[in-house]
């Protein structure tokens, strides 16, 4: 592989990886599978760099590969529960527009997220950290907060909504 080609790939990885991973997550792919599938996307691109049409934005090419790999992944996984439903969900969500739908918006959203987390109360921030940093289930978080798993799930659901609103505000001009 030529140095120029390597450089092009490295630049593509740097600028698009956050977007590709969020795109895969946005298709409803379970979080545990997101990064594995995203890695597959980049390996596929690396193997076939020449196939990317010159007049096409690389992110569109990457998303196309990501979508196909996600579908194939669930088709292959015969033992997975709700396989057919997950396939339908991916197809549906792929056609659904998202608020952060381009590379720049996604990168800005990622940067804005830190500030938005700072705006949460300490208790809510801790709940988010337990969920994402420590990978704890709602049952486990509920024990720490002396509450029910259902209450934790609902709180996390609302916190994600708050974070989404905050990030959207920050991305608006003069936001």
């Amino acid at each position, binding site marked *: 592989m030529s140095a120029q080609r390597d450089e092009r790939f490295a630049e593509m*990885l*740097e600028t698009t*990886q*956050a977007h590709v*991973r*969020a*795109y*895969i*997550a*946005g*298709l*409803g792919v*379970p*979080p545990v599978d*997101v*990064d594995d599938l*995203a*890695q597959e996307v*980049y*390996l596929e691109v*690396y*193997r076939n760099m020449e196939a990317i049409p010159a007049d096409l934005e690389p992110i569109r090419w990457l998303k196309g590969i990501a979508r196909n790999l996600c579908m194939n992944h669930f088709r292959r996984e015969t033992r*997975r*529960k*709700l396989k057919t*439903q*997950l396939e*339908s*969900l991916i197809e*549906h*969500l792929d056609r*659904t*527009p*998202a*608020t*952060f739908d381009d590379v720049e918006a996604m990168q800005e*959203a*990622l940067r804005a*997220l*830190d500030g938005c987390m700072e705006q949460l109360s300490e208790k809510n921030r801790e709940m*988010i*950290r337990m*969920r*994402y*940093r420590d*990978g704890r*289930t*709602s049952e486990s978080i509920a024990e720490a907060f002396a509450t029910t798993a*259902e209450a934790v*799930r*609902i709180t*996390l*659901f*609302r916190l*994600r*909504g708050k*974070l*989404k609103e905050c*990030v959207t505000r920050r991305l608006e001009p003069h936001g």
Partner: protein
Amino acid sequence: MSVSDGLLARFLEDRESLSETEFDALLAALKADAALSKALKDLLVIDGLCAQTLAPDRRGFKAQVAQRLRDLERGRALEAGDVVKRFHARPAPRRLARWGALAAAACAVSPRSGWSVQPSSPLDERAARPIVRQQRRA
């Protein structure tokens, strides 16, 4: 058709915690309501971004891709190595062996000629072996 926040919250935490009936109801609601679909997609994206930002095992994504690429390249090198091994294992073509024997005979006739074969490839090396042996004997 509407779905409860409770169902969406469970879906976000663990897709497989939903029963088939619940998942079908969620799909039907999403297909009937574009705003709900967009809201869920945004929440899934935020969920993905939170994981990217906070989960320690997800921060090294670029390094993980680089490692997979190194593995891929090593795999290619191993495949190329197999080709070389197969080449080594192949018997020398008869014609070359015959030329080798002729050269050996020439050396035996003139042992102090100083002529030697410098092996440049595995094949040449194999063809040269009887010649060198002849020279040593001489």
